[in-house]
């Protein structure tokens, strides 16, 4: 396809096309080609089989009621922060620009992140996971570190874990024994949560994707937007409106008939190879409905997804700050470092203040989620901060580098695109 597009560009630049009056018909052709031509069936990746006999669903326990305000991560969390932080700076940051250009995450990096256990943070020990306690805070800390390396790669790495976490949190015994185990090994399935739909003012509580009961099956129809690695998805959790009008979450395996994908490259998180999912009479079993269709489960899922994007915003925002500080100290104008000017220095202060505020709000919501307490308001507040202030961090960061912020020689223009994206996308990931 890449070759095809290059050829197309060459044709489009020919003056001959205009002289011969061929441009309009050619553009129509290209338009319909891009509309339908790249649509492919989501490949059947693997056969999921029940592996464990569970008498009841395995769950991570809530962290229980605590006594004191505390900002110190546990020893275990600090170890994970260090491991994923090293991975992000040694492997993700150097690969970021190429992955952004290619619109894909290198398989090797995905495999390495699986070895680090990126997909099993939310899986209970009983199902082969790493921790017995709930892990939204841990996932936020890890996600921040990964996004400090690169947000697009971080999204590609974290998407499968989101599905594993969803099934761990809300799956029944059959769903857990069939789907969770592969996420705890080295060969983690490509998987993601599909919530967003392509239209303005998208509201996750007003879905147009439908799920209709037909005998022993659910039949899904609709279009899902900006799903990480959609073309390669082996397992999906798809949000759809049931006949009662309430939204529900459905487990859909890659390769199911009627499940199609097409590339949907976006402004940011390009390394996550985002795509659209087209569901045309996709039939799944009655047992595919997650969490018994409880609307509260769905709302919690949406809020947890927002927290994942918040964590990525915090990581990329911190990366911006860490990059801008030495830059403005080294860059000289009018005979001194530009950081000696208040207009520059105060912008740096605001970057730090807003990123810290975003981080604390995100952690507060995540800690409440782990404690099993309501966190819808706190998640909304964190989301709003990360969307508004995160966007400003992107813009101000570019501003600090001036023209250098606008060219691909520096990572800052990518962070500008990523920070805008993180504040817009719904679903896709989960903490």
């Amino acid at each position, binding site marked *: 396809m890449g070759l095809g597009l290059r050829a197309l560009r060459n044709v489009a630049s020919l003056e001959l096309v205009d002289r011969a009056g061929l441009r309009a018909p050619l553009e129509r052709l290209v338009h319909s080609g891009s509309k339908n031509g790249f649509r492919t069936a989501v490949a059947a990746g693997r056969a999921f089989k029940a592996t464990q006999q569970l008498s009841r669903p395995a769950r991570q326990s809530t962290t229980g009621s605590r006594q*004191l305000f505390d900002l110190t991560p546990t020893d275990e969390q600090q170890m994970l922060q260090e491991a994923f932080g090293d991975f992000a700076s040694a492997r993700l940051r150097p690969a970021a620009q190429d992955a952004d250009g290619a619109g894909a995450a290198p398989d090797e990096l995905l495999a390495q992140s699986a070895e680090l256990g990126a997909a099993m943070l939310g899986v209970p020990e009983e199902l082969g996971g790493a921790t017995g306690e709930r892990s939204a805070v841990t996932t936020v800390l890890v996600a921040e570190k990964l996004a400090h390396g690169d947000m697009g790669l971080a999204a590609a790495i974290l998407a499968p874990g989101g599905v594993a976490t969803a099934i761990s949190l809300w799956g029944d015994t059959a769903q857990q024994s069939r789907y969770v185990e592969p996420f705890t090994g080295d060969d983690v399935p490509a998987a993601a949560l599909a919530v967003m739909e392509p239209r303005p003012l998208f509201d996750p509580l007003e879905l147009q994707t439908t799920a209709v009961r037909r005998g022993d099956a659910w039949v899904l129809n609709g279009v899902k937007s900006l799903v990480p690695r959609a073309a390669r998805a082996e397992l999906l959790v798809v949000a759809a409106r049931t006949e009662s009008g309430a939204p529900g979450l459905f487990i859909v395996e890659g390769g199911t008939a009627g499940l199609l994908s097409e590339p949907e490259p976006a402004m940011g998180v390009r390394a996550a190879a985002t795509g659209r999912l087209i569901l045309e009479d996709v039939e799944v079993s009655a047992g595919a409905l997650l969490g018994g269709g409880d609307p509260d489960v769905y709302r919690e899922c949406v809020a947890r997804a927002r927290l994942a994007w918040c964590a990525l915003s915090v990581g990329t925002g911190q990366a911006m700050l860490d990059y801008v500080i030495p830059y403005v100290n080294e860059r000289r104008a009018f005979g001194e470092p530009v950081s000696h000017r208040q207009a520059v220095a105060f912008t740096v202060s*605001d970057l730090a203040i807003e990123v810290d505020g975003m981080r604390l709000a995100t952690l507060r919501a995540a800690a409440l989620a782990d404690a099993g307490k309501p966190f819808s308001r706190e998640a909304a507040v964190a989301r709003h901060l990360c969307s508004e202030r995160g966007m400003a961090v992107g813009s101000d960061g570019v501003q600090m580098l001036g023209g250098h912020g606008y060219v691909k020689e520096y990572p800052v223009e990518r962070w500008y695109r990523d920070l805008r994206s993180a504040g817009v996308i719904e679903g896709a990931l989960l903490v």
Partner: protein
Amino acid sequence: MIDLEIPRKFEGLVAQAHQVATEVFRPISRKYDLAEHEYPKELDMLAALIDGMNEGGGAAGAAGAAGVGGRDGAEAADGNRNGSNMSTCLGVMELCWGDVGLLLSMPRQGLGNSAIAAVADDEQLERFAGKWAAMAITEPEAGSDTAAIRTTAVLDGDEYVLNGEKIYVTSGERAELVVVWATLDPKQGRAAIKSFVVERSNPGLKLDRLEHKLGIRASDTAAFRLEDCRVPKENLLGSPEIDTKKSFAGAMQTFDNTRPLVAAMALGVAKACLDETRERLSEAGVVIDYDRPAQSQVAAAAELLSLEADYEAARLLTLRAAWMADNRKPNSLQASEAKAKAGRTATDIALRCVRLCGSIGLGESELLEKWARDVKILDLFEGTQQIQLLIVARQLLGKSSAELK
């Protein structure tokens, strides 16, 4: 383990402070806004009550600046500590939800008390215990630039002789002591600046006038002249040596403790505005749906959500700064981050809430307009917004005050 909720052990204190705010401050709020310079006599009984509570140890430092800088608070098994810096911030938030001007008028809770608590030696602590202390730093020609202070202190026998002019002294008329910043040698800059405890009854300390202000009218703001004002040399706080490395840092360290406190004041006013506006909007049929994106809600709900979000960021930044102080972590950067965010956010919230509530917001029949006037001081005193941004920037960029002016 990460947890950003208010610790359970402070819930009682918060409830108590909220009750004081509701039952003592709110009912007299408008009265003393209109009767500027009149002493809020209702506060004497309250101060006695709070002194009693402090002695009882139950709600230590709930009310004001005297509470911060302490080193109390039991340590949890993992070494984590929630002590008086946090409890004071929480208490102050609630009381300022009631009325920030009245909080600033609380006897024995002045910023001078905080300076004494931070810098005084044991003998001084004992001598000044239980007295209400105001703080006099600003001069007509020196505000944020404290190094430009021109009030002089000259040693004459066993006494320092102070001469100069001080303005914007909160509680200057009512306090029993005034902590005066003066220089031992104007040529030596910051290092020569010291603070001196002056008895309010000292004949050399002459009250010039009380200011008429935009807000916090319940709180008296005094201007003084110091004319051959003689104070015992034992009233100098800290070391009399002019040490270019340490001295000024010592004076400034008070601010690391009081800045989160002023941030807490701003948050109290902001919360009052948000609570009132939320209720008014809900009567008008507008309620935030936290599960839906802001842009798919009506504009007023989206705006309220946006204000709540910035409030939350400022609140958590403030609790972080207080928590670090309780755990003896250096927090100068975080204290200034909190003050900068809280000061500007609270002002923004108050002014926007006035707009959301229309004539109810503007009219004197309700308190929103008053809060919108009161709140602005909190982005000015204890270091303006711009001073906080300077402090943050200098630390992040590793710049001296000579490099980053």
